[in-house]
């Protein structure tokens, strides 16, 4: 599909470095799906949908900086929703979110809780101010907090909050890959799902730039069952824009 014109209706500052951009168009996604967001004249980047009609963005490079210059009434091009989202399970689910990785997990928390599924969230960030969507997760269930500097919750990494794996029917994880790898090594992979981030070029499953071994993050993912990621580059290497292997 060609990009559709998505007009920004509201910009919400979630943290000092993270903003949510609401659009007048709803994309009707499954939680975990993403869009390709085209900031015209700059670049096109993959972004998780944090609401049916919004993306939540951390300012990290040229495209996100250009996006941060935009406000109500401005527009960007959007292709999507794309990829495979979270496989939703009933019972008692555990969400593990690091930083802006909370973006695709918040709609999963809300949808699951509205269906009567028990939701527990482990939410981590560098500081109290950088915690994303805390209220949304609290509304959906129990929340445990960890911050690197100890300004809220437990001081340390969110992965240190993981315990009693056996009580959860499914574990969902999104965050920096180093953090996800720690989760990967700590939970039963047969009931875990991970939302991956890779450099995405074509976004339609053809070019292979986003491949983790043979898995296409843009089409087969971005969410993968833990079992599928065993013995792959996940947690060890990613590819830069040239396709060179670089350490995670």
């Amino acid at each position: 599909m060609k990009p559709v014109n998505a007009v920004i209706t509201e910009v919400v500052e979630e943290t000092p470095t993270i903003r949510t951009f609401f659009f007048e168009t709803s994309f009707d996604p499954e939680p975990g799906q993403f869009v390709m967001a085209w900031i015209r004249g700059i670049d096109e980047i993959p972004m998780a949908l944090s609401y049916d009609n919004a993306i939540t963005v951390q300012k990290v490079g040229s495209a996100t900086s250009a996006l941060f210059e935009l406000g109500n009434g401005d527009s960007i091009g959007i292709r999507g929703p794309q990829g495979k989202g979270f496989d939703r399970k009933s019972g008692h689910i555990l969400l593990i979110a690091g930083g802006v990785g909370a973006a695709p997990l918040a709609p999963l928390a809300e949808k699951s809780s509205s269906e009567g599924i028990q939701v527990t969230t482990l939410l981590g960030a560098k500081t109290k101010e950088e915690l994303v969507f805390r209220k949304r997760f609290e509304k959906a269930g129990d929340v445990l907090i960890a911050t690197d500097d100890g300004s809220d919750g437990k001081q340390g990494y969110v992965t240190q909050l993981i315990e009693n794996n056996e009580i959860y029917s499914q574990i969902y994880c999104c965050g920096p890959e180093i953090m996800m790898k720690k989760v990967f090594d700590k939970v039963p992979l047969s009931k875990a799902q991970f939302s991956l981030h890779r450099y995405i070029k074509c976004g339609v499953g053809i070019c292979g730039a986003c491949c983790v071994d043979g898995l296409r993050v843009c089409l087969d993912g971005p969410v993968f069952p833990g079992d599928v990621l065993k013995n792959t580059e996940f947690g060890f290497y990613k590819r830069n824009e040239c396709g060179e292997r670089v350490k995670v």
Partner: protein
Amino acid sequence: MLSLKLTGIPLKNPLMLAAGIMGTTGGSLKRIAHAGAGALVTKSIGLEPKSGHSNPSMVEVDCGYLNAMGLPNPSYKNFQHEIDTAKEGGVPVIASIFGGCAFDFSQISGALHADAFELNVSCPHAHGYGAEIGTDPALVEDITCAVKNVVDVPVWVKLTPNVTNIKSIGLAAQRGGADAVVAINTVRAMAIDIESGYPILGNKFGGLSGRAIKPIAVKCIYDLYEALDIPVIGVGGISDWKDAIEFIMAGAQAIEIGSAIGNNINIFKDISSGMEAFFSEKEWTLEEIYGMAHKV
């Protein structure tokens, strides 16, 4: 039923992965081998690491895909282990390479070990590379000759359709010693976002692939088959077994598949079984339909 020898290389079937598709990592190439491809062509590899054009670099249009990737690649110095991993898939691996002059091509091909080389002198949107070289018969001959001098495996030359007479470029490759030509690369094209007036591709223009270019490819293959003594490998818009049969009847000894993989990663197995059923029904062989359109 589908096996053949292509420029001396035994293939279990004539369906190969086209360059630039799932071809940057050894793991992705291996996946396509396991999905039934007869051979794999890698992403085009150059002298230095290159990040390519800014995004959007590929967009679906009404009749196919428009792309301007910009030859992103990790350079030949970081690519041999990807080829070696791809080889674990059990089918021949052909290294697609590009450069700005004959010296670049010979340096890269001399350093890589692959079952064959496909020379990309046909990418329509990379300044100083690809079709900027591949539209000049003298350069094509020179580059082909330079690579032939340094490798002892087959050399295929991939041609651009963005020329007045593709036969003259094919003949130049043949004079340079090419073992086969591959036709066609994408057709120069463009799309504009009418909400803003911006060209959609980061590079503004690019190349069209997919269904729309299939009849263009068929005609190019037909013409090259008539003009050349070396085999023609057909590529451009194949999405089912009927397309594959049509290409072979036009004069392609084997074919490559690209864009159609996005919607169907099992396309190699689907096309293989479709061709086999067709041959059984018609009581024809692969050999018999090769170039059939020229003989009826």
